[in-house]
């Protein structure tokens, strides 16, 4: 918690709540943004026509992401720029293709492979699996239907939307190479990538090793701790990963027709660390300050930028710097986008339906800590030693490749760090890991923190959030209110 979170400050009446904007209001605000500021919001790459991306959010809704018309947005130019940046990725990818850049799609590893590919100047990388939330944003089952037509039903989570997108070419051009992590990770990702590869899309698979539990392991195996992130791993897993990275690097170089030299990789790591630091700073202030200077969805967008830069590392850093500036300013002025009395909750899964996060905020809650399965993308990557080995080591912080107890512990740490009153797990319908980890996370949180956990499945619905989900959230808000009354904090 920051100094601003101290009760004394709150009681001094310095708190000021800023109103979030409707899509219509956001469009008006975008139109009023200074032309000089707008000129900074341009995608530039060698051989590619410069592409302005800061535009009315309703235009992205017209292009298919209908839910945007019902969401509410941060009123600052930086916040609106963030949304525009995220939703313009599609245009950047097609522009990059026209400009002759190489296009790499990555699946699952969430944070390290793009550092390798962005070492090349004439390449863009995107996360095909981030399409998991597209059906909800589109309020349309087009991508899921396309996946179903290819024999992939809801036995796989929403990540199957990527299969539909590969075939429809609706969200990204055909990648020159897809890089898919399999092995010790979510089964859905690998299943989908197998189907994609089977349909002739050029794919290289690489394997994630299991990060064994050091405490439970009684062999003579040697363990070490990651440079940042506090994860213990068996040393031979790192050697194995280095070999995987060497293999992928070779494939990337063949596609790009260019060798990735060590200094190129070091520069890419430096850039990644800069973005990661910005994300850490933003989330620490957003989650640790009362009143919250940034709403849950905006902070989530920032967190996810760390894994893929939305196909533009330069603008990604600029967007995050802008957001950080606004957040700092708000903290200084005691301004928040949510009331100071909001129920503080850690979210232990990214919500497939973003409107649910805003519904929770409307009900008086706030997001104050997350374990979105991408926490390894926030940690620093080692800058000493061999860069490829540093990347391999960074993978070993991945919460998905270890035990469920490890992930549960990360949730517990978030609860403690940000003094959360509860944990919400919006499980992803069909995701293989959700079924077994909810109970373990709940039990660890109950036992170690004594705060309640709400878990529910988020089904796709074109008619908005279901009554069942609304009822659960409202009941959770009432529960947290009762706990406050009992503790005498309200």
């Amino acid at each position: 918690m920051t100094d601003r979170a101290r009760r004394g400050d709150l009681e001094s009446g310095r708190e000021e709540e800023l109103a979030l904007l409707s899509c219509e209001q956001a469009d008006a605000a975008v139109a009023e943004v200074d032309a000089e500021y707008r000129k900074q919001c341009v995608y530039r790459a060698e051989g590619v026509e410069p592409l302005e991306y800061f535009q009315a959010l309703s235009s992205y809704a017209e292009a298919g992401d209908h839910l945007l018309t019902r969401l509410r947005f941060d009123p600052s130019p930086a916040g609106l720029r963030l949304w525009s940046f995220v939703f313009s990725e599609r245009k950047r990818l097609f522009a990059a293709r026209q400009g002759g850049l190489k296009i790499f799609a990555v699946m699952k590893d969430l944070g390290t492979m793009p550092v390798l590919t962005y070492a090349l100047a004439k390449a863009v990388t995107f996360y095909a699996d981030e399409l998991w939330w597209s059906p909800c944003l589109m309020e349309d089952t087009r991508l899921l239907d396309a996946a179903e037509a290819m024999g992939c039903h809801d036995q796989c989570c929403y990540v199957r939307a990527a299969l539909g997108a590969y075939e429809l070419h609706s969200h990204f051009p055909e990648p020159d190479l897809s890089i898919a992590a399999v092995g010790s990770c979510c089964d859905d990702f690998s299943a989908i990538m197998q189907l994609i590869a089977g349909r002739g899309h050029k794919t290289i698979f690489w394997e994630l090793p299991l990060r064994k539990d050091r405490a439970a392991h009684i062999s003579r195996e040697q363990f070490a701790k990651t440079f940042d992130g506090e994860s213990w791993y068996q040393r031979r897993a790192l050697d194995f990963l280095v070999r995987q990275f060497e293999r992928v690097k070779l494939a990337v170089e063949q596609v790009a027709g260019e060798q990735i030299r060590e200094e190129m990789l070091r520069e890419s790591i430096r850039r990644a660390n800069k973005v990661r630091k910005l994300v850490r700073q933003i989330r620490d202030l957003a989650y640790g300050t009362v009143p919250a200077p940034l709403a849950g969805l905006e902070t989530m967008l920032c967190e996810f930028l760390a894994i893929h830069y939305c196909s533009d590392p330069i603008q990604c850093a600029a967007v995050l710097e802008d957001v950080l500036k606004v957040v700092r300013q708000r903290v200084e002025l005691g301004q928040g986008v949510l009331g100071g009395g909001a129920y503080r909750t850690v979210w232990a899964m990214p919500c497939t339906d973003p409107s649910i996060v805003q519904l929770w905020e409307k009900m008086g809650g706030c997001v104050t800590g997350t374990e979105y399965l991408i926490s390894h993308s926030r940690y620093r990557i080692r800058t000493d030693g061999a860069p490829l080995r540093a990347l391999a080591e960074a993978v070993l912080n991945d919460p998905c490749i270890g035990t469920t107890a490890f992930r549960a512990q990360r949730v517990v740490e978030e609860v403690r760090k940000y003094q959360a009153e509860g944990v919400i797990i919006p499980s992803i319908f069909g995701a293989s890991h959700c079924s077994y980890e909810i109970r373990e996370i709940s039990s660890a949180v109950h036992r170690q923190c004594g705060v309640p956990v709400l878990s529910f499945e988020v089904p796709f619905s074109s008619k908005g959030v279901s009554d069942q989900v609304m009822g659960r959230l409202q009941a959770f808000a009432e529960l947290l209110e009762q706990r406050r009354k009992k503790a005498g904090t309200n």
Partner: protein
Amino acid sequence: MFKAGVDIGSRTVKVVLIEAEAKKVAAWGITDTGPIPARTATDLFVDILKEHRLNRRDVLSVTSTGYGRSSIDWTNQTVTEISCQAAGCVALYPQLRTVIDIGGQDSKVIALSEGGLVRDFALNDRCAAGTGRFLEMLASIVDVGVEELAALAGRANEPIEMNSTCAVFAESEIVGLLAQGNRAADIARGVTEAIARRTKSLAGSLSYEPKVVFTGGVAKNRAMVEALEKHFACEILVPENPQLTGALGAALLAGKAKTA
């Protein structure tokens, strides 16, 4: 003056009127939800007022709860069934620590702290597994009234273990079991056991404690109460009107709770 609680459930609508000061139940009513829950709730509320020669002005505050709680526009606040069930049951049993509520389409377990505040809760999944719908489906297949199921289960010699608590899959399983010549009574007991097992599993994550109260329409089924007592290994209390506790809690919370 009075306060009212309106519980709009998937199967029935319940209204309870309490005296605002004494907090005693002054009137209550219950009826099938029907196709338009809001209209049913409004009609029931108006009928109760008429029957007791009261005006809307005599009712200081109305709280609605249940899945249809937001469907009426004459309520002062909406509160979830979790908080209302807890408030209603604690009013009846002050030492209460756990509420099991099994309604037409959902089931829930609520853990309470000393003093009757909600400590934690668990709700069933999105489907109707382990709910009253499950019993209705059984009654329809074996061709008896829902209220006769307890007596039927009581005549069981050897309960049949059900593989499924999903209302859809269980239907074909029950039909299959009957076709194999199994007795309806043994199947009824098996279904009751399956629901009790599922409810116990729901409660498992909460570290529940006795004293336990069982509410909702299914609580009227004596065989269900016995099965729950066996699985929870403690006495299960059932209020005189187990379907009314949600509406009673809503009435007690009227003008009090913070609407989320």
